[in-house]
């Protein structure tokens, strides 16, 4: 599959019904505010499982962010939804175990047990420590005050602190943000469509104040690296070889100010892995050989990704415009506008891939809903199937 730029933000979220606090929904999205609006019916494209008026409005209780790809987020989402079946968790570690039910026809059906808040958080905690995800640059953010103590209580029961994962309680503090307005994102990064503007961060704290685009920081870093790499004589600080042959495609630049350390991706990864576990392949963080400051691997990679994989602005704008049109029409007609902005950033092939992913997310998310409405699940599956067909048609057209 074609490499894609690491998304600026992608999260897996946990919704909770404000009407029935026992009803939860797990989903993933690059834009939680928009997605929440969809779930609550404010915008077209919500999941069927969350469309029951008896459960609306939904609140986003917590999010797990930092996914480096939509695939990664979807995998985590599925694992969270199906902790009893995911291969990411060893059988010996499973907290939730699947239930086998025999249907009237005599078939055995594996059902994921219903999970309450505590079970969900326990599984989340487990997933964050599983080898499959422990090395991912994930962070947890709670937006609800009552759920965070549960998390803390659960963490206390388990020995050892939550390693390398940032967990914060982000409550809504004020409706007006005191922070200086962030510089406008570059044209290419700006999300097309008027609807995206609706969900810009407002105020301070909470989901509404969550900053999901750190473009200005990233852009600075990208700009710095570009400037450094313009110099053809620049060489890897570790292997002393140049970057001419690949045009800097494998060069990573220290994100810290006043540090112009440039190295090959592999070279630096080896340095980082020296202090890591033996036979580890994916570094998590390390110390810059030059400035000796702790550096997160994901920052280096994200910059490299945005620098090398970001589509040219012109192309993006063109595609975004076209895609916006199609998406808008689709939304109006079919209500399949989920994560439309994401689609805008993808190429055609990626768009198709993303469609599938989004479909998976929809179908998978239906499983996680705790409220028992078999009819709803059926509908959701049916809608997912329809959406697949429609999208496939759409792809064919394009």
């Amino acid at each position, binding site marked *: *599959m074609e490499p894609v730029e690491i998304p600026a933000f992608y999260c897996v979220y946990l919704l909770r019904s404000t009407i029935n606090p026992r009803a939860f929904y797990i989903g993933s999205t690059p834009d939680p505010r928009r997605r929440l609006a969809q779930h609550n019916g404010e915008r077209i494209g919500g999941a069927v499982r969350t469309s029951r008026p008896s459960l609306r409005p939904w609140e986003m209780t917590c999010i797990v962010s930092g996914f480096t790809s939509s695939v990664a987020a979807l995998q985590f989402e599925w694992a969270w939804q199906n902790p009893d079946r995911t291969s990411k968790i060893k059988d010996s570690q499973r907290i939730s175990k699947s239930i086998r039910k025999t249907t009237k026809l005599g078939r055995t059906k594996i059902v994921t047990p219903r999970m309450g808040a505590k079970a969900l958080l326990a599984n989340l905690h487990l997933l964050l420590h599983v080898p499959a995800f422990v090395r*991912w640059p994930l962070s947890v953010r709670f937006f609800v005050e009552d759920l965070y103590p549960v998390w803390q209580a659960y963490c206390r029961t388990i020995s050892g602190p939550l390693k390398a994962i940032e967990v914060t309680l982000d409550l809504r503090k004020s409706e007006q943000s005191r922070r200086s307005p962030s510089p406008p994102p570059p044209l290419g990064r700006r999300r097309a469509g008027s609807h995206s503007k609706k969900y810009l961060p407002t105020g301070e704290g909470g989901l509404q104040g969550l900053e999901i685009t750190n473009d200005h920081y990233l852009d600075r870093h990208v700009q710095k690296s570009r400037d450094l790499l313009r110099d053809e004589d620049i060489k890897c600080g570790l292997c002393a070889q140049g970057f001419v042959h690949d045009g800097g495609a494998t060069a990573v630049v220290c994100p810290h100010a006043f540090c112009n350390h440039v190295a090959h*991706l592999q070279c630096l990864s080896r340095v980082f892995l020296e202090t890591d576990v033996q*036979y*580890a392949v994916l570094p998590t963080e390390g110390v810059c050989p030059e400035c000796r400051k702790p550096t997160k691997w994901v920052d280096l*990679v994200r910059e490299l990704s945005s620098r090398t994989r970001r589509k040219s602005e012109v192309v993006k704008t063109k595609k975004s415009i076209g895609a916006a049109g199609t998406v808008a029409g689709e939304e109006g007609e079919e209500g399949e506008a989920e994560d439309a902005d994401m689609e805008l950033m993808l190429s055609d092939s990626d768009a198709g891939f993303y469609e*599938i992913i989004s479909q998976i997310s929809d179908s998978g998310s239906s499983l996680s809903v705790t409220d028992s409405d078999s009819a709803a699940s059926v509908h959701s599956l049916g809608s997912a199937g329809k959406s697949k067909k429609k999208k496939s048609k759409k792809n064919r057209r394009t």
Partner: protein
Amino acid sequence: MAPLKTTTDPIILLSSPPVPSLRITTTNANTTISSPLSSPLLSPSALLQELVEKGKATIGKQKDTKTPPRQVTLGGIWSVPSESEDLAGVVTKPPPKRKRTTKPTGDPIVKNSRAKRDSISPTLTDVLLKSKALDQVGAKDPNKPKTKTTRKKGAGKDGHIVAKSSKRSMPTKSRFFGQPDTAEASSKPLAYEKPALIPKSPNKLLSEPPIHPARRQWTPVKDTVISIDSSPITDDLETGEEKDTKYRRLPDFASMVGEMKLSTSYGREGSAVPLFGGLDKPGNVLIKKRAIEMVNLPNSSTLAGHKPKAPKLKQPKKKQKTITGQATAQYREAKEAASHSLLEYFTPEDPSAESAAAEKPTRKRKTASEKNKDSIPAPVLLSPKAAKRQFDETECIFGTSSQLEVMAEIEIVNSPEPAEDENAPDYLPPSTSIVRRSFLKTLTKDRKGGNKLVGTRRGANIDLLDVSIVEDFEAPSHEFPVEPKLPESRLGRGTTRKLWDAAARDLNGGLLSVEVIDMSLGNDIPSLPSSPRPIEEISAAGNPDLLEDPALSEPGEVIEDEPIPNLRIEDQSMGTPLGKVVQGEDIPNLRIEGQPANVSQENGVEEEFIPNLRIEDMPAPVKMTRVAMSDADEPNDLTFGDLAKTLDRASSIIPNSATISCVGVTANIATTLVDSSAATSGPGPRVQFVTSMPDYNAWITTKLKAEVAKYGFKDLKTRPRMISILEQCWQAKNKRNIEHDGNKCMGVTISNTFTQRTRSTSPSLSYHAPSGGPYNPPSRGYSTTTAPGVSKFRENGPTIRRCPTRRPSPIRTRCPSGTEIFKSPDRGRSPTPRDQPTTSPPVAGQPAASKAPRSSLEHPPRPLSPSKPAQSIPLRSPKRKAKKHKHKQKHHSPSSPRSLSKSLSLSRSRSCSRSRSPTKTPKMISCIILGVKPGSEGFKFSQAILMYDPISVEELMEWLNTRGIREGGYGKEAVVSTGEVKDWCISNGICCVLEDAGWRAQRAQKKS
């Protein structure tokens, strides 16, 4: 008086409502109480209590007969009515407790149902009340209610319990009678007052003559009820009362049973009636009954009209109809059966009592009394100790399924012995007694129904059984694992066995041990296939030559690898001199191989070895076994075993691992072994001349099929498959010989040993071997000769088989420890391979230690293909194997180069699986990924991982198998599967995607 009162209290509980119950009581009360409770279930403990009580009662009777306790009892009873007078006010105004209790009991039906549901004791009380009601119905005299009240009062005086019972009765009146009671109530107190004035004098009760006629009218009811106690009700009230106390004590047990029956079987009335009869001889009883009848009148108007007999008939039906009746139906039967059994067993009187209970009360009495008298002489009942003793003994008899049979036999056999046990109370040794106790406990727990006991009547038999059992147990208790000899002397052998069986079952629940012991006694040691010893011995005896080498002669712990049974079989089958001839060569080889086998354990394919070995071993002579033993003895084995264990663990986690380390180890071992082998045994591989492989292509299809079937393979439809498999099998069979030939050519023994090992470890060897003379003509004789080699390989064998298996599971089984190995054969044994010697030999060729010195250089292409199937075969179940074979065969076709390449890759994978432990696989992949050079093809994977890009598992696997592993320096043979790659990705936090799975593949297809 005081003691009497105390005794009365419990009685009141039972027959709470009527005073007469109080009369009856005294010592009887205890029995009655216990009986209803225990009777339903007839638990052994209850039986014991009863027996003890009986003994006491009998003793008491003897004393009482001389003393006039009756009067005392009467006085006590009469005192009750006086108390009842005091409580008369209470009757009109029942205390809150009474109200509560009465409300539910208000409806007799409800009472019955509840009582039955709850427990027997309450049922009895309710039944009594109901029976009263029936009596009342029968006689509608207004005086009766008065008597009731008085009785209640008396009960109240006696104790709280009495008061409770009276309370219950009261509410019933209040509800049903309502107005009529009130009308009568005025008269009642007066009537009560009179008896109250003379409470303690029994004469007063007698003074109430009018009741008697009424009673007579009710007598039929009594008859129906069958209560034993009712008998005293007859005209001789006074005398009857006194006697009743005596009689009741004696027949209590029977009465208890009878009561139970009545309470359960008969409706309220029926149950109550007997109690009345037993309880009230005096007029008071009658009066109360009438009052109760009044109460019942509204409920059962029909009953009122009917005479007592009619309701009797109806009652059982009604009871059955009721839920409670249905629910208790089983218990009734059980009770009856139990009662019979008990009566029969313990006291011959009881059955008669039961029969009497079925009959009229008078008869019952007589019968009971007579029987009691008869029973009195029985010493067992009298002394509680004796009762206990009997009880213990009796328990031994019973219960289990085979008991009856055993019993019969025992009876026959036991006739001589019984006296001993019974006569000598202390005969039981302490150990036996303990055993028996535990045994009895278990039995008591098991049987509650008591039906089982029925069969156990005969104490003598039981005793005999006990003795025999005890004796038998003594030996096993001391030396359980050891084979105890059963005492045939007394009981005879067959009987003893059966006894053993039964006893063993009862005791442990896991009788197997005992049975096994018996078996062992019966069977000779050699029969045991599993025990390593016999085999060793046999092998040693069979082959003196083998003993020559001290190392070999050592008893092998090593035997692990090969299941003993196989060895035995081989020995039996082979016994031929060929083995001896081969011995010289084989021994060194075996030794050497034995170590590699351990190494191979690391590799992980070893499981299958055992089965293969067995198959191959079939021809192998005894020597082989021995050799294995010697190999086992070598110190290296331990280390290898440990390694193998660790590897197995790791393998369970992840299949593939770096082969290098393993290979190195093997090589070292091999070298050492070679040295030792060279020193010990001369190079002379005397194996018969190598035969050439038959030209299977020229064979007819039917012949091919038959040949394939010989090897136990599933019927292969295509001819080339059959040919390929046959070739493989043949090569596998003859490989060793071929190798030997090659070695001969080499002229160096060391090389031979080395090759053998390498063979096991690396595929190259296998190829090498065929190079020597893969196509030599095969001959039976040759095969047999090879067999010894194979048998030697047995030890090595595991290595051979391992090759085919990639799965981690086989690796687990590989474990060097003998036990594990034994397990593995079971698994690997997949039916077909065992029988077929072919499967095992191919194994030898399979090994693929990448570092094996000679390795692939010399291999002709052919042998490779055959080696594969052979490897695959042993590990899996026949079906799977067949499938695999088919799958592999597709690639096999020896002629086509492509197939060769594929076969090579397969062999690589196998070899890889062998060489690398599962734990090392992820490490290997990690090392490869980390060591990728920037310009190489694999760099994209490395970069993708570092860039958090989801990688395709298939792509990565393909690259690893094609180039990555080789470039990484891990050998060509190593192969990783998608599962391994996926596991590696997951374990390293790499986002991976299986593109072939699910909708992605479909989508790709659609697109294409």
